[in-house]
């Protein structure tokens, strides 16, 4: 197991950054994560030492960029254990990737009356593109019911599937409730029924070991910035034959091999047909460094440590009688409220103590129908958080009644 105090030294934001005059305690890792020096340096290195375009030039510099860019693709491939490196498409993030699947694959494979299954706990980016594609194709978006604790179970998936189901699009871990879906079992069952499974891995891939071949998932998306990488870069993984059947949404330089004035275009093969235009080269290189960094720490150790932090936090919160927890037994973020305090006022109170927590509907705007509350506070940990930070969070929870202190700091 890694030494968390040593790990923290890798993060400039954890060494000197203050908020409201107090050392930053960053507990909004579901939103984005902090960056270690190695990632920052790799981005700077590209910008200062070998800045050039990828796949565009016949000179050494361009070749060097190509090598680093394609090396990052190989790093991602190994990280999620994809079968082929060509199954890794670089995108601007999970949202971009999900839109690419919905419009590029969903729109061309769905017809009138087909069903797309999602859940009410999905992030907006795994709902809104499907709404739109359904509108265009005549397909129907249906919801797999969650169990009483907000979990997605194989049983409920089985019950929701009909002969019309064509696509299941679900988060492996949801961003508010944080429950882990039995993804492998869902994929197995879905494939027996010729259903394609799309997985939003934004909240899972950064926190646990991912093996797409073992899971059997058809498409998997995730974001670089939620796993110590730069913003504006993410991944679309797709089984190679499915990527071949997927249409690119954007066309342009780098995505075609040739075209003529009659409008006959020959697209390149995946992944290049999806990467028109100059990509986010420094982002991709930074993501590669982030993955190497995480791999050195060990994804299993990261998961185990975060689980320890979560259990510690839950046990401390349960000692307080003014805290309501909405997802005691899950693995991801903790959704809670301080009784009698509107979540936004609560977040403001935490802010005044230098603690970053999220308030709101967390981009899962139909979840309130399930939770029965319209908004919650959310704390989400990463491997660089500590029990001492949680102790401070708990101390502030105790001050809930004085939430206006924040305003008069």
């Amino acid at each position: 197991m890694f030494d968390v105090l040593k790990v923290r030294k890798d993060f400039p934001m954890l060494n000197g950054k203050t908020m409201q005059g107090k050392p930053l305690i960053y507990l909004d890792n579901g939103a984005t994560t902090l960056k270690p020096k190695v990632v920052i340096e790799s981005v700077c290195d590209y910008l200062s030492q070998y800045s050039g375009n990828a796949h565009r030039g016949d000179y050494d510099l361009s070749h060097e960029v190509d090598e680093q860019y394609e090396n990052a693709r190989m790093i991602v491939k190994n990280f999620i254990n994809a079968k082929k490196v060509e199954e890794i498409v670089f995108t601007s993030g999970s949202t971009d990737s999900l839109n690419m699947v919905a419009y590029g694959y969903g729109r061309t494979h769905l017809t009138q009356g087909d069903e797309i299954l999602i859940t009410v706990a999905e992030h907006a980016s795994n709902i809104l593109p499907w709404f739109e594609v359904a509108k265009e194709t005549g397909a129907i978006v249906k919801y797999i019911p969650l169990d009483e604790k907000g979990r997605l179970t194989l049983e409920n998936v089985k019950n929701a599937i009909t002969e019309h189901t064509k696509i299941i699009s679900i988060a492996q871990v949801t961003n508010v409730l944080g429950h882990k879906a039995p993804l492998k079992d869902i994929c197995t069952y879905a494939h027996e029924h010729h259903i394609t499974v799309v997985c939003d891995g934004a909240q899972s891939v950064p926190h646990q070991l991912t093996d797409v071949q073992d899971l059997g998932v058809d498409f998997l998306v995730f974001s670089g910035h939620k796993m110590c990488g730069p913003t504006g870069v993410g991944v679309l993984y797709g089984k190679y034959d499915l990527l071949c059947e997927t249409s690119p949404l954007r066309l342009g330089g780098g995505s075609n091999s040739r075209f003529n004035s009659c409008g006959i275009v020959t697209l390149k093969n995946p992944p290049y047909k999806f990467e028109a235009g100059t990509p986010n080269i420094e982002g991709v290189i930074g993501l590669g460094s982030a993955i190497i960094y995480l791999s050195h720490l060990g994804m299993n150790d990261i998961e185990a440590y975060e689980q320890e932090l979560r259990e510690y936090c839950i046990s401390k919160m349960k000692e307080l009688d003014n805290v309501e927890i909405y997802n005691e037994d899950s693995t991801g973020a903790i959704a809670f409220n301080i009784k009698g305090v509107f979540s936004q006022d609560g977040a403001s109170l935490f802010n005044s103590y230098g603690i970053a927590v999220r308030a709101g509907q967390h981009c899962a705007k139909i979840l309130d129908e399930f939770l029965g509350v319209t908004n919650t506070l959310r704390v989400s940990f990463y491997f660089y958080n500590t029990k001492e930070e949680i102790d401070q969070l708990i101390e502030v929870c105790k001050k809930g009644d004085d939430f206006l202190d924040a305003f008069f700091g």
Partner: protein
Amino acid sequence: MHSLDEPRILRGIIMDHYDNPRNRGLVDDESYTKVNMNSDTCIDNLDIQVKMNGDIIEDVRYDGEACAICTSSTSIMSELMIGKTKEEALKIFDNYMNMIYEKDYDEDLLEEAIAFKNTHKQANRIKCATLGWNGFIKIIKEGEE
């Protein structure tokens, strides 16, 4: 130091208006002009209604879901504005915004609204403290067009 400057008192004002918002609840009356103010960045979502009688603001109503800062600032705004002329209301509004954005302002015009004088210290709350006010002024200004 102004007698109301003590944090304990300012806090008391906010809590009082949060726990017992004045003029809250919409009315089904076509003589009111209504606007929805839904914050892009947070949860606050209020409907504001204003009824004019010539140049006088006869009534201000609001309802919706909002935090303590948003609810109380809107409640205080409604009390301040009712009975004022349009010109007086604009002056109060300008002074309030000057206070929020740390410019010079006349605190006598703002009465209980000075409870929000520290908003700039928590910059993320500026939206909360101005949502209801901006909704009100939108109605007033649109009425002029």
